[in-house]
């Protein structure tokens, strides 16, 4: 069914510094990344995503744990012995070499015959649409062009795995959007496994096959974009990706299908599955657009008073103070059937569809 595993990271920890300055950039991280996958490491700066990438590239070595490429241990190998290439955040193009020399560098270092280098470089220049600039120096081309050269240079040796360290962060918004599409196209065309590091959740959601959300040196959740967005497992994941509400509740019962939770209003609702124990207090998350505002307070799961209304064109955001004093935000599409012009001070009911609520751990 699924493709075989390309990179397997097993129980990897990375400690920097000594004594009282020491800290763990990664703690007991395990993840399997499959062949042909566009896999994203997503998290805030300092979460360890770049460290994990550098461990896979071979610039750093794990303090404990193992990294395998197609089942072969590589954590002890220097970077020049790993069939893995990197696109650096600031591109790291060699300023003393031309565009073509940069792209051919990896092949030259692998002692490939000149004819093969020439043809691969030509092929790569075509792939990134840079044929006309092949003999330019790398400081004579624009940021977007540098980005393409960096990509071509890393793809030229046909690595098993391509590592991309926030490669789009130095580009302006419009260029970034264009490159997102192009990156995705190249991944499909080349069939190479991409491991992509970013702190931009939107970028991660649009491009990835799977995402690992990281924080403070740990992987919190691995899953498809919809898994991550709709079924966050941790409070941090829900909070980091998109806007969300948190509610307090008590878990009544749970099984593999789902769970039942009692809200602060006393009403019980169904949620997605959770590992939490029954009869314990839990946090529940729900996206603003997944709440339905209704007038019928008896049918509602929660109720509260509208404190603020923010109109933003396509949507309206209603800030509601629940009877339990919790803050809640509901988002209603202005063009949709649920539109109603709730006023500040009005009492409203909030209704949830089945399984839009998720129990999250802290």
């Amino acid at each position, binding site marked *: 069914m699924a493709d075989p595993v390309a990179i397997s990271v097993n129980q990897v920890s990375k400690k920097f510094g000594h004594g009282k300055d020491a800290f763990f950039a990664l703690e007991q991280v395990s993840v399997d990344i499959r062949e042909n996958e566009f896999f994203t490491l997503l998290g805030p700066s300092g979460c360890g995503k770049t460290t994990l990438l550098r461990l896979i590239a071979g610039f750093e070595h794990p303090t404990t744990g193992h990294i395998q490429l197609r089942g072969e241990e590589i954590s002890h190998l220097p970077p*020049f012995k790993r069939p893995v290439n*990197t696109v650096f955040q600031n591109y*790291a193009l060699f300023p003393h070499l031309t565009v073509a020399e940069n792209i051919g*560098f990896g092949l030259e270092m692998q002692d490939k015959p000149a004819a093969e280098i020439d043809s691969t470089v030509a092929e790569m220049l075509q792939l990134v649409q840079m044929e006309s600039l092949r003999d330019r120096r790398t400081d004579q081309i624009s940021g977007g062009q540098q980005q393409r050269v960096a990509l071509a*240079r890393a793809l030229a040796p046909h690595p098993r795995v391509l590592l991309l360290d926030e490669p789009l962060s130095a580009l302006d918004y419009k260029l970034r959007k264009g490159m997102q599409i192009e990156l995705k196209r190249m991944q499909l065309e080349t069939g190479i496994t991409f491991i992509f590091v970013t702190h931009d959740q939107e970028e991660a959601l649009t491009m990835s096959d799977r995402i690992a959300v990281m924080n403070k040196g740990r992987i919190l959740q691995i899953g498809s974009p919809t898994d991550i967005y709709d079924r966050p497992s941790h409070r941090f994941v829900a909070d980091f990706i998109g806007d969300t509400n948190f509610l307090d509740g008590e878990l009544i019962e749970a099984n593999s299908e789902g769970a039942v939770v009692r809200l602060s209003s006393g009403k019980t609702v169904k949620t997605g599955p959770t590992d939490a124990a029954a009869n314990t207090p839990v946090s529940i998350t729900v996206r603003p657009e997944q709440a339905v505002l209704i007038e019928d307070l008896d049918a509602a799961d929660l109720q509260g008073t509208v404190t603020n209304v923010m109109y933003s064109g396509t949507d309206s955001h209603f800030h509601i103070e629940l009877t339990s004093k919790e803050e809640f935000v509901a988002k209603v599409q202005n063009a949709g059937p649920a539109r109603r012009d709730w006023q500040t001070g009005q009492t409203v009911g909030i209704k949830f569809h089945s399984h839009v609520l998720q129990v999250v751990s802290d």
Partner: protein
Amino acid sequence: MNDVSQSLSDYEQAARQQETRRNWLLCTPALVVLVLAASGPLLVMLFYSFLKSGNYGGVIYEFSLDGWFNVILVRDIFDDVLRFADAHLSVFWRSIKLSAMTTITCVIIGFPTAYFIATRPRRSRNFWLFLITIPFWTNLLIRTFAILELIRNNGVINNLLMDLWLIDEPIQIMYTDTAIMIGMTYVYLPLMILPLYASMEKLDFQLVEAAYDLYATRIRVLRRVIIPLIKPGIVAGSILVFIPSLGAFVTPRVLGGGKNLMLGNLIQLQFDQGQNWPLGAALSITLLAIVMVTLLVYVRYSQRSGGQDG
């Protein structure tokens, strides 16, 4: 320029002229001293190189090209035939050879050292740099003397080797070209390390990572990435070592003895025993010319590579 000054108001122009006058006034005292005791004497020396040598030093105020002829030619006292002055040519050759060898040795030792400093944690780099700066600012004569004590026949190295029964007789290092080279390498090494470090501090190690990532081995990373990127520092350091080596006087005098002359010592001889001031002046100007040409080539080089970077 003209367009700008025409469009300026009279008031502005007056203010500019006043500023220029103020600047020149402030610089004048320093310039007077420099003309009296630096650039002026160079011109006088140029003039003297075209005069006739006095019998007991000094000059006779008569035009003569003998001083310049004698730089490389010598008139045989018996048959009056002009020959190449082998003694002078060998001194030129020794100066250039030893300076080049000193420069190369300084690169070989200085490059790894500068690299070592540049890869220390930021906080401790200043300390290592300070260790290089200290010898740089201390007396060249004393540092030469320190080398003398090491390599003398009954100096520290020979005594140590004899105590260890590794040699029976002291190795004669003093008064050889090797001694001069060791001494010059020692005294001019900081001049190589400082510009090399300045270049390496700016080296983007992500480029090194990129090269390793693209299958370059350590030797290839050094040859294909680090050395090309550090080249301006290597050239600057080489100039800074080569030029003073070429004009070295104290080190060859103390370590080279009377026979192993370098240009500086040959020049001094003309004012000491040789008593041929025009020749001494001509030799000095020749040395100055070599230095200036080297500097000019360097300026051209750095402008060219600087232009490419911008």
